[in-house]
C-alpha cells in the first residue's frame, strides 16, 4: 500500500519534472539517480558477500570480538552505557551546527546587508560566544 502511494507520487513527480524543467525539484532528480545507484551497489555487494561467502559455524565466532579473551557479558544494545561526554559533544554539535545554518544565509547576502549585517552577525556570534566560553571554562570541551 505504502509502496503504491510512493510509486504514484514518483510518477507524478516525473511528469511534473518533464513539464517544467526549471523546477527546483527537477534538478534534484539526477541526484536521486546517483543515490539509488550507490544504494543499489552497496546493497548488492553486501548481499553478495552473504550469498557467495562460505558458512562455517563456530560458536566463538558469534561472540563479541574482544581480542581473543572471553567476552564479558555486557548488554550494549538497550542498556549500554555511553559516556556522558559523547552526549555533550552531540549537544555542542547541534548548537554550532545551528549557528552555521545561520551563517550560511548571512554569508550569501552579506554584501546586501552591509554594515547592518555585520553588526547583526557580530552580535550573533558574540551570543554564541558566551555559551562557548561557558562550555570551555566548565570543561565541556575537555576529554579525559
Amino acid at each position, binding site marked *: 500500500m505504502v509502496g503504491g502511494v510512493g510509486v504514484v507520487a514518483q510518477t507524478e513527480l516525473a511528469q511534473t519534472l518533464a513539464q517544467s524543467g526549471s523546477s527546483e525539484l527537477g534538478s534534484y532528480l539526477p541526484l536521486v539517480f546517483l543515490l539509488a545507484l550507490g544504494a543499489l551497489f552497496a546493497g548488492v555487494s553486501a548481499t553478495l558477500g552473504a550469498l557467495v561467502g562460505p558458512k562455517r559455524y563456530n560458536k566463538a565466532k558469534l561472540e563479541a570480538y574482544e581480542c581473543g579473551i572471553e567476552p564479558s557479558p555486557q548488554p550494549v544494545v538497550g542498556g549500554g552505557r555511553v559516556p556522558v561526554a559523547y552526549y555533550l559533544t552531540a549537544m555542542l554539535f547541534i548548537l554550532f551546527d545551528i549557528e552555521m545554518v545561520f551563517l550560511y544565509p548571512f554569508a550569501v*547576502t552579506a554584501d546586501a546587508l552591509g554594515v547592518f549585517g555585520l553588526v547583526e552577525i557580530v552580535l550573533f556570534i558574540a551570543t554564541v560566544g558566551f555559551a562557548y566560553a561557558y562550555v570551555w*571554562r*566548565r570543561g565541556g570541551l575537555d576529554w579525559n
Partner: protein
Amino acid sequence: MLALQPPTQAPIGAPEIEYSAILPILILLGAACAGVLVEAFVSKANRWAAQVTLSLLAIVAAGASFIFYVTDAPPQRGLTTLYRTIAVDRPALFLWGTLLALGLGAVLLIADRTVERGGAFVATAGIRPGTVQDRVQAQSGGMQTEVFPLTLFALSGMMIFCAANDLLTMFIALEVLSLPLYLMCGLARRRRLISQEAAVKYFLLGAFASAFFLYGLALLYGYAGSVKLADIANAAAGSAASDTLLFGGFGLLVVGLLFKASVGPFHAWTPDVYQGAPTPITAFMAACTKVAAFGGILRVLTVGFESTSWEWRGVLWVVAIASMVIGAVLGLTQTDVKRMLAYSSIAHAGFLLVGAIALGQEGLSGTLFYLLTYGFTTLAAFGVVSLVRDSAGEATHLSKWAGLAKRSPVLAAVFTFLLLAMAGIPLTSGFIGKFVVFQAGIQEGMTPLVVIALIASAVAAFFYLRVIVLMYFSDPAPDGPSVTVPGMFTTVAITLGVLVTLVLGLVPAFALDWASTGTFAF
C-alpha cells in the same frame, strides 16, 4: 531559494528600533548573557554573590528603565517596533511591570540560602541521585548558580511573549521562557528524583504543546500568508481562503497557549511539575508563567481573532468550565500543599480565561488586573511553603501542617491571608480580581459561565479552608515540621507578595486604572 536571490538586490537596511521602549528586555537579556559569562569566569566561591548581585541589579535596572519609559509619556496607542514584531502598548507595559516585580520576588526566593543551607538548588545537577557523591553534595553549601541566568532568560522570554505581535516572535519567546524552566525544574537539592521526573514531564509535555502551537502557526501562515496577528485578523475579516486553515490553526495555536497557562484539560503537567520543582522555581513558574501566558492569550485572542469570536467562544467556554471544575474538584482530594496550589492555579486559569474570552476593554483590563493579583499572591504562598521544613526538606504533606498556627502564628496568619485571597474573600486582592474579571464576563453576556465560575470558586474555597482548619484548629503533630526563620531575601519576597495582595485588596483603584488605560497596538 536564498541562494537564488541575485546579490545585487537593494541593501537591506536595519529595522527601526525604539530602544527606549524595549530597553528592559535588552537589559535582562544582556544580564543573562553576562550571567553565563560569570558562570564561566568567576571562581566558584564568588559565583553566588556575583550572580545574585547581577540578577537583582539587572531587574532593578530594567525596572528603572521601564519606569522611566512609562513616566516619559509614551504614545497613548502604543507603538510597534522591530519590524512590527514587538508591540509596546499599554497592556504589554502593564504585563512587563508585573513580570518585573514578580521576577524580582522570584529571584529573591531563588537566591535565598538561609532557609536551606546552600539554597534550594542542587550543587551539581550532573551527579546521580542516591550515590555517595549525591549525599556528599547534599551536605555541601554549593548551588547550581546557573539558575540565575536561566531565570533572567526565562523572564525576558516572558516579557517578549506578552509583547509579541507576530506568532513567530511569540513562538521564539515561548521557547526562550520554557526551556530554562524545564531545566530549572530538575534542579531541586532535596527529593531529586521527583524533581528530575518533574523536569522530564514538563519538558515532554511542553515540547508537545509547542509543537501544537507551531503547527497552528504554520496553518495560519498558510491561511493569511503572514504570521502577524494583525494580518491574520485582516485575512479573517475578509478572505476567501478556507476556514479550515483558520480554525484548525487557531485551535492548535490555542492548545499550545492554554497548555502554557495550565488551563483546563491541558493541565496534566501542572500538579506534577509544581510539586516536583524546587519551590522557588514553582513560585516563579506559577506567578510569572501564568502572567506571560495569559498576556499572550489575550493578545492573540483580541488582536488576531476578535472578528471570529462567534465561532470559537463556545469552545473556550467549555475549556474555561473544564479548567475551573478540574481545578476545584481535584484540588479537594490533594494531600500535598504544592499539588493543592497547583490545582488552585488550574482553577484560577479557568477564571482568567473567563476574562480573556470576554475580549473588549473590560475583559482585557480585568484579566490584566487578575494576573497582577494572582501573581503576587501565589508568589508569596510558595514562599511560605518553602519555610515549613522538617529533616527531609520541605514538609509539603498537609498532615504535617497540622497545628502550625501554634508553632508559628505569624506564618500561619500570612498563609491564611494568602489562601483567603486565593479564595476571593473581600479585602484581599483576589476578591477584586474576581470581581473585575466576572464583571467583564457578565458584561459580555456570559452570565452562566460566571455563575459556574463562582460556584467553582466556592468549591475551591473548601480546600483552602481545609489548610486553614489544619493550621488553626488541629493539634500539632508531635514530630511535625519546624518553621524556618526566613532570611532577608525570602522575607522581602513574601512581604512583597503579601503587601501587594493587601494593598490591591484595599485600594485597587490605581492598579485598575493602569490596567485599563489602553488597548493593544498592532
